[in-house]
């Protein structure tokens, strides 16, 4: 076989060499025999799964034939292969419904990224120097195995830590099985904007530790407390599709959308009514609305069902939350509160959402529970136009389902750091796409802590602030090159289990993370090998998905082979049944009295609230390495390739700051610099900055660009979950010089007045 290939290759080489020698390096390369038969110019569409954010949209990948430079038999050459050309929404998939956001489409650039790691690497220079040398896969895996077995034989399997990006479904399962059988603690998902608080609250309120699915399409009145549900929060594509229906999808009905936040977000921009409230008082406002509804008999407490028990004194009509009191603490006029409550009650089904900043305060749990209570009072839980909890796929109870660590990732990372500082750092660390160095406040000293760990191996595809510390790198396939499965947490009403075969062959000498784990397990032998008996990841997937093959209603179960085939063609299995929501067990648990937020920093020294927010294009910075994302203008600021600081015109005047000035934002824990952007859409006592830029090492496109607001955040946690309270920091701002804004837009007013020319 090898030999035949070689001969053919040789023959072709001669031909090509003779044909074209026009200086173009590609023409000097030998041509390999195509490994797949493709019709040139004809596009093939293959289902896949979007991994750019945790929403888990279903993709259709447009694959066409093209020439790629690859390495075969250790020799570089050209090969005709199927190449992913475009990502589109999978029309059958219940979450994306044929649609896809910009971030999802930029997923294509992950596969073709010039700085993607192309082969296993072993550190050759000092740690953090980024000096690596290429090693073979056998070598690399052998090394990792020896390290792990050393841990095991030293009887410290427990000191193996695993930090990962959000991973669900069978890959998660595999990870956990691996760690469990090895004797290590479960993997820690490190997300800056983790929704642990809301998951915990939903567990408390409804017995479902997961993010809800919102049935916007059938809602007539929507009030969102800080939830950027059209932009970056929860399942944006599914929510946007539903939003479109809410607005114009139903003849004669146009749902109203009210947004409560301190800075006009991309979502807030679409609101009919935009209400700035004091930070961290959203829960109080929600209960204020509930108060009015009960008091004015717009809804009977009874309607709230068991949720009525959520809040003490519910039956007493929430006496503490009378409009004047609520106005006092939230700053929202009592009259407005009354009107909103009436409107909500008058236009069922009405729906309340909470997410983002309101939950990133010391009182986040209170806020979440309060809004849950409001939803319950509105009687929309599990009902059309309300909130649903998407059933999770049956199998793998152990680790599958929503990645609800009992605690938020922040505190878990915190623990690691604690251990490190107490001198008993983990002996080994596995990294998979997690970048805690970038997504944690610098005052936490994550990097310093990680440096104390003697051995770090990364399974990721890129070198970033965290993986630059790795001693060994075993680069993963890109998602489009891998077998994938996913169990979306929310976005659909029925259960969804997505599956995708590789859409294209690997471009580089990489290996899928699950296969690496299986190989390592195999070589480790013993319990680990026993716990992970599969030869390859797709074998595991097949076993799992065949188990879903049950008679659905009247139609019989399919033949195993056929089922496996159809699942791959459709991109997963799902049912459209809405009754799947399951019973809501609610424990009686409530915040006692009105609970306000606490902030880090005294108001007189740090007059501004600091609001970091997920960048529309770069999210928490994990997409900053994609030129398409860097050059797509932010919807609000229209900025590209850079960081900006949003500040209210009046506040700016007071400080003598004008558009484009370089300003310094200082908290008790550090300072960052970026260019000022004067924006009418932010409260005068707020400073907002997008997260995403400010990478130290993250490919040629993101490195050394902009500033990272997370760095200066106060390391305070939401007590109940230990998630980072990233909205609880106070800052001061000062002008330091002339900055540079890279904006796509010129004017900001549609009809500029004489005063505001440009």
């Amino acid at each position: 076989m090898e030999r035949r290939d070689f001969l053919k290759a040789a023959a072709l080489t001669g031909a090509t060499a003779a044909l074209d020698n026009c200086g173009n390096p590609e023409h000097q390369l030998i041509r390999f025999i195509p490994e797949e038969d493709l019709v040139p110019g004809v596009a093939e569409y293959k289902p896949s799964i979007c991994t750019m954010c945790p929403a888990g949209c279903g993709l259709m990948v447009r694959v066409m034939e093209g020439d790629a430079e690859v390495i075969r038999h250790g020799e570089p050459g050209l090969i005709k292969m199927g190449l992913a050309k475009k990502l589109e929404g999978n029309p059958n998939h219940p979450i994306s419904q044929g649609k896809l956001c910009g971030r999802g489409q930029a997923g294509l650039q992950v596969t073709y990224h010039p700085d993607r790691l192309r082969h296993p690497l072993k550190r050759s220079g000092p740690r953090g120097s980024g000096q690596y040398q290429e090693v073979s896969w056998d070598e690399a895996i052998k090394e990792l195995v020896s390290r792990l077995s050393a841990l095991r034989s030293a009887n410290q399997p427990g000191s193996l830590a695993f930090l990962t990006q959000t991973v669900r479904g069978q890959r998660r399962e595999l990870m956990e099985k691996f760690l469990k059988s090895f004797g290590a603690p479960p993997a820690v998902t490190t997300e800056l904007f983790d929704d642990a608080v809301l998951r915990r609250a939903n567990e408390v309120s409804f017995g479902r530790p997961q993010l809800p699915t919102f049935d916007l399409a059938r809602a007539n009145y929507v009030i969102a407390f800080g939830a950027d549900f059209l932009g970056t929060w929860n399942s944006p594509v599914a929510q946007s599709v539903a939003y479109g229906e809410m607005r114009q999808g139903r003849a004669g009905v146009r749902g109203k959308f009210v947004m409560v936040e301190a800075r006009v977000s991309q979502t807030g921009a679409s609101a009919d009514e935009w209400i700035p409230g004091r930070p961290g008082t959203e829960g109080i406002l929600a209960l204020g609305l509930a108060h009015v509804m009960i008091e004015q008999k717009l809804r009977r407490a009874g309607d709230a069902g068991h949720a009525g028990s959520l809040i003490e004194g519910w039956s007493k009509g929430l006496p503490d939350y009378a409009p004047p009191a609520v106005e006092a603490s939230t700053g929202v006029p009592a009259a407005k509160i009354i009107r909103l409550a009436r409107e909500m009650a008058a236009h069922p089904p009405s729906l309340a959402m909470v997410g983002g900043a309101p939950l990133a305060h010391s009182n986040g749990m209170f806020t979440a529970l309060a809004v849950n209570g409001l939803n319950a009072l509105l009687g929309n839980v599990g009902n059309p136009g309300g909130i649903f909890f998407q059933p999770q796929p049956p199998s793998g109870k152990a680790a599958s389902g929503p990645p609800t660590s009992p605690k938020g990732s922040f505190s878990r990372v915190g623990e690691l750091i604690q251990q490190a500082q107490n001198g008993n750092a983990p002996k080994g660390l596995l990294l998979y796409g997690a970048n805690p160095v970038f997504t944690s406040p610098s005052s936490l000293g994550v990097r310093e802590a990680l440096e104390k760990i003697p051995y770090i191996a990364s399974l990721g595809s890129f070198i970033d602030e965290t993986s630059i510390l790795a001693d060994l790198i075993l680069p993963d396939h890109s998602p489009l090159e891998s077998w994938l499965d996913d169990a979306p947490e929310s976005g659909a009403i029925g259960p969804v289990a997505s599956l995708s075969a590789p859409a294209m062959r690997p471009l580089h000498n990489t290996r899928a993370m699950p296969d690496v784990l299986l190989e390592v397990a195999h070589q480790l032998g013993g319990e680990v090998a026993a716990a992970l008996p599969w030869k390859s990841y797709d074998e595991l997937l097949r076993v799992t998905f065949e188990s879903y093959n049950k008679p659905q209603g009247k139609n019989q179960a399919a033949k195993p082979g056929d089922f496996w085939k159809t699942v791959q063609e459709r991109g997963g299995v799902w049912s459209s049944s809405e009754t799947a929501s399951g019973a809501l067990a609610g424990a009686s648990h409530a915040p006692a009295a009105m609970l306000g937020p606490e902030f880090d920093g005294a108001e007189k020294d740090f007059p501004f609230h600091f609001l970091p927010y997920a960048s529309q294009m770069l999210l928490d910075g994990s997409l900053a390495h994609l030129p398409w994302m860097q050059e797509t203008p932010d919807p609000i600021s229209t900025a590209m390739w850079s960081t900006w600081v949003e500040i209210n015109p009046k506040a700016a005047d007071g400080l003598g700051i004008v558009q484009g000035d370089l300003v310094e934002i200082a908290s008790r824990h550090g300072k960052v610099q970026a260019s000022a952007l004067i924006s009418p859409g932010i409260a005068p006592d707020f400073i907002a900055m997008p997260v995403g830029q400010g990478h130290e090492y993250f490919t040629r496109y993101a490195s050394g660009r902009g500033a990272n607001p997370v760095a200066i955040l106060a390391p305070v946690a939401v007590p109940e979950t230990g998630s980072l309270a990233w909205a609880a920091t106070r800052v001061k701002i000062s002008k330091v010089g002339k900055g540079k804004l890279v904006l796509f837009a010129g004017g900001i007013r549609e009809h500029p007045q004489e005063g505001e020319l440009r």
Partner: protein
Amino acid sequence: MSEKTIAQVNEDLLRPVLRTTRRFWIAVLLLGSVVAAGIGAFGYQVWNGIGVWGINRPVFWAFDITNFVFWIGISHAGTLISAILRIADAGWRRPVTRCAEVITLFALMIGGIFPIIHLGRPWLFFWMIPYPSERQIWPQFRSPLAWDFFAIGTYLTGSFIFLAYPMIPDFALVRDKVTGWRKKLYTVLALGWRGTPRQWHRLEKAMHIMAIVIIPVAVSVHTIVSWDFAMAPVPMWHSTIFGPYFVAGAIFSGIAGLIIAMAFLRKVLSLEDYLLPVHFDNLGKLLLTMCLVWVYFIFSERLTVWYGNESAEMAVFWTTQRGPFAPLFWTMVFCNFIIPFPLLAIKRFRTTITGVVIASWTVVIGMWLERYLIIVPSLSHKYLPYTYGSYRPTWVEVTILVASNAAMGLLYILFSKFVPIVSIWELKVGSHKPPVVHHRLSVVRDSSPTGASAIDDGLLTTDQ
């Protein structure tokens, strides 16, 4: 004022042609190197792409088209003025016409280059030219750029011929005065001119017709240049006043250019006896008129926009009045009116050559700014405020602008090296007393020693 014999005249006016000074070589060297720098800058632009300019979206035109309009404007000095003066048979024109017409020729050449070098792919400029290509695609005759091609082509041809006609007898003169290679050269250039009545009659008739034809052509050329803007739905471009506005501006800057050139020649070629203060005085009066005409036009343009108060146009309007372009705008007003007006209106200043020349310099600068202010503010403030932009030139654009001026000087110097810069025979015509008996005019004047009237008849007397 000295009276001169024909021999002296020949001697004076042929000197620059026959004798080459060191100053000449230095000037050619300096200007030449600047022009070379400009060509280098253009090469740099072609090699790297036009991105080396400061242009952007939405300001797709800036220095390039400003220079184009500016130079086409300058070109309106010569031919148009001299044609009008010829038709009016203003005697004082005689020493002036040729150096005026030369300006036209060279300004047109330089101006005409800019639409080519401003292209994204300059090597394909010939696609604008109507020729039967194998693609069988003709230019888009609806496009003002195609109109430009025809207008400038016609004007260039016309002004060259108009300039060349009266050069023939002077070439004959040089032919008789020189020897060696020059003899051969000028024998050819003279086309075998002898000066029989037949030849004189045809020549004068042809020049008369040309003078009549070239005036509407000149007017049409700058009108069409203005239509490059007026045809596009861009705020403050899409205006009917642009035609006359541009023509007036062109003549305005043209006369200024002519005055500067004349002052230059007067000094360098020591033509003090031929280019007299009275010429500058008269041209100064013309400049004054055009100055007022220009003020009238810019005022009515601004007034109609401001009164109409259409939002998109007002955005542009305010950028120039108070916004980012205000400094340039008011500088322009200073250069085009506030400084030159008193200099030209007050006789004491106007009759000093320096006064007129200073006024001319400010006008030339002001008119360049005017073209810039027509193009950039409008483009940077089109209808949708989201697309507002701004513009900064790069060294490449500046170099090319400077080089274009150097090119003008260089061509001018070289021309005056090969051709008598004052039309000698026309000068003589002005000199000889018309026959008493056969005189057609009612007035018969003796040559009075000085003053404007002297220019008419008695600049010099033939020795008898």
